């Protein structure tokens, strides 16, 4: 289920990230005030910070799951409570990996470092 993703990582001032020029439909995982993982390649992105780091990043694998799939997986592999808002981003330990979750009304995206992907996939039962 987990597939390689092409993401862009951005590190910049928080203010520049807040106002970054990223296409509206693109999912932005704001992993820290000064850092984001964007589900798009870097050519579509610009940030008003001359020192920003904007790099393509192939080091992540991800999977979309319906909530029917996600709920039992999370019950057995995630010991913290998801935020209630949709859409929203959440991150923390899932299946012992540092995971990023993108939560939508009818589905969820899980993103993990590729170096953990096989073990997370085992835990997903795939």
């Amino acid at each position, binding site marked *: 289920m987990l597939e*390689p993703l*092409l993401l862009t*990582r951005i*590190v*910049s001032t928080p203010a520049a990230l807040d106002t970054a020029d990223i296409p509206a439909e693109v999912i932005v995982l704001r992993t820290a005030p*000064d*850092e984001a993982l964007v589900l798009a390649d870097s050519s579509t992105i610009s940030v008003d910070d001359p*020192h*920003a*780091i904007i*790099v*393509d*990043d*192939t*080091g*992540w694998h991800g999977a979309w799951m319906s909530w029917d799939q996600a709920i039992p997986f*999370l*019950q*057995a592999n*995630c*010991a*913290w*409570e998801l935020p209630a808002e949709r859409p929203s981003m959440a991150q923390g330990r899932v299946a*012992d*990996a540092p995971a990023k979750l993108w939560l939508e009304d009818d589905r969820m995206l899980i993103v993990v*470092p*590729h*170096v*953990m992907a*096989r*073990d997370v996939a085992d*835990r997903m039962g795939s």
Partner: protein
Amino acid sequence: MSFEYEGQTIPTSADESVLLSLLRAGIHPGSGGPLCFEGDCPNCLCTIDDVSYVRSCQTPAEVAVEVSPHGRDAPPLPPLDAGAPAIAVDYRVADVVVIGGGESGLQACAAAEANGRSVECFDASTGHDVVAIYPGPLVLVRTHGGMIEVECDEIVVATGAAEIHPVVPGSDLEGLWMPRAARKAVDAGLDLGQLVSVGNVPDALGATAAPGELVRFVGDHTVSAVITATADGEVETPCDNVVVGLGLHPRTGLARMGNGMNVRVVGDALLDADIPTCPPEGIACPCSNVTFEQLDNLHDRGFTHMELLKRGSLAGTGTCQGSVCTPYLRSFLQDRGQALQAPFTARPVARQLTLSEMAAGSHLPKLARTALDDVHRSLGARMDRMGGWWRPWTYGDTEAEYTAVRERVSLGDVSTLGKMIVTGPDAEATLQRIFPTNVSTIKPGRSRYVLMLDERGYVLDDGMIAREHDDTFFLTFTSGGASMSEMWIRDWSASWGHDIRILNQTLSLGAINITGPKAAEVLARATDDELPPFLGHSTLTIAGVECKVFRLSFTGELSFELHHPAADSVKLWTALMELGADHDIRPHGIEALFRLRLEKGHIIIGQDTDYDASPRRLQHEWAVNMNTGDFIGRTATERTNRIPLDKKLVGIETDGDTLVDGAVMWSGTEFAGTVSSSMWSPTLGKGVALAWLETVTGAFPETVRIDGVEARVVPPHFYDPEGSRARA
């Protein structure tokens, strides 16, 4: 429905406990003593389906297959070849957890729900055994289908009160009942024959009341009479069964376990405990088989503190965790002139669970795998756990791997290296203070080996700094040091108020080291671009993959480190293996790498360093520039440099045998240090080692003896000390 008991098939019916089914069949499974039917006592313990110490009164008969009795004596360990069952876990979150589904528990549930709060309620009678309250707060529940962990904000303890057990002589006979158990037994249709009651027992049971106070029970294995004391002396009342009502003791174990957390106690669990009369003789603690005579003996010998009495006798340390004996230990000490003692500290777990149940939801720690993990395994590599990663230790022929590097060309997977971009207006200023080197003299396109020191002046990690542009640097760290180094730099740069951007790319980039005298030749087939000079770096397209190419050397041979997008690792590896096929290219594992670097005297952090490795001790003072400004470890280095040197990392050579890592060195009869890394060098035809040499009577010896072998102390650069091969 049925289960097996000692070769006997015991029929059961739905909603019935193992204990009740056994009693119906005329079997008392425990080793005697009153039954409570509420899980409070150790008197109905069985081994059920390979698990001992199971309260048969709390186990539904329908889940049992094989039941066997065990008395007070220790049951055997499980068979050594037994497997561990997999137990499921269900993580839940609730505002309120209510423990106990009695009247007060249900009231608490209703009240919380009326306030719009989410509630989980657990009751042992429905198979939900709350076994612990942990910080969080977290409530741990055992069910017959697995474990439930609930994180919550508030816990309501509505566990009620336990009935106080008799501990008089004969209280280990069969045929004794607590009032609630007798009620359930009668309701379930058990025939209790001539039932006699002692103490405060509801009339509805229809028992014949024995007069006066309980003194002892009489019988052979099974009770046949109860002796009570009246104003007119002892009275013997014959019986088939006895029901004993001695008062209530609140079940506060879980509430005490949650002491200091948001725990509220309601209902009978709040009752003031009845303090029972302490009998002059009898078994105070049925779990550990402790008599009052023994308690008296200990008390007379100074074991007067309740905890010492417990530790001296082991009363209260058994299966029921003091549920039976605590009321009596308190009255025992009160009788002997002490103030009423508080019950023992309550610790998890309240009612036992197996290690497998305890492990539910946890997994063995997983290691990171590089993008080449499958490639290594398909090549037959034996993988080893190192620095948080699975790494190829050897592909099966370490000698051949070593030779490929020294004589031809070889690939190594160094994706595990820590990798970090540091940029921004203050990037140079930050690194200038992080590293003991003059960062300002590293020109764009160049790189430098660096140590990272802690505030004690000891080496935390080592790696490379490469300057890309004026304000942009790329750093590498050891495989195990990546996260620590990120934390270190983030912490310090923030404390200095520096304006920098940091990106840890350790998991994003793969890295392949191509090394050996033919490395440049093979690389040239993969790119039209010019390769960087020694200690230079540049961005090139290698076999169609964009790589940051660093030219440096850990093996002592010509080497290029190719950092590339992790998704391209397999493509790049495969292309290089094909391009080098005519040179018989082959990958080398860590074992070969460790030998190659040892011949060069390159240290490995953690193997050749301990927590007190200063640059001076490591003989790496060349990597510390005291003429730059303030760097972390500078003041410590200045301070410790004024202290005479006590040990240093040196080279050791022997003509004959290979030394063993960790071997102890002697100078005469004096300890002179230990070997940290060693090998037989096929290239040099001698044994070489790195070793920690200590001063002996104030001076460093020039020769040492190791396992009877004479060894020379030499500079730690055995192979190509001028470095001409790496620079070629």
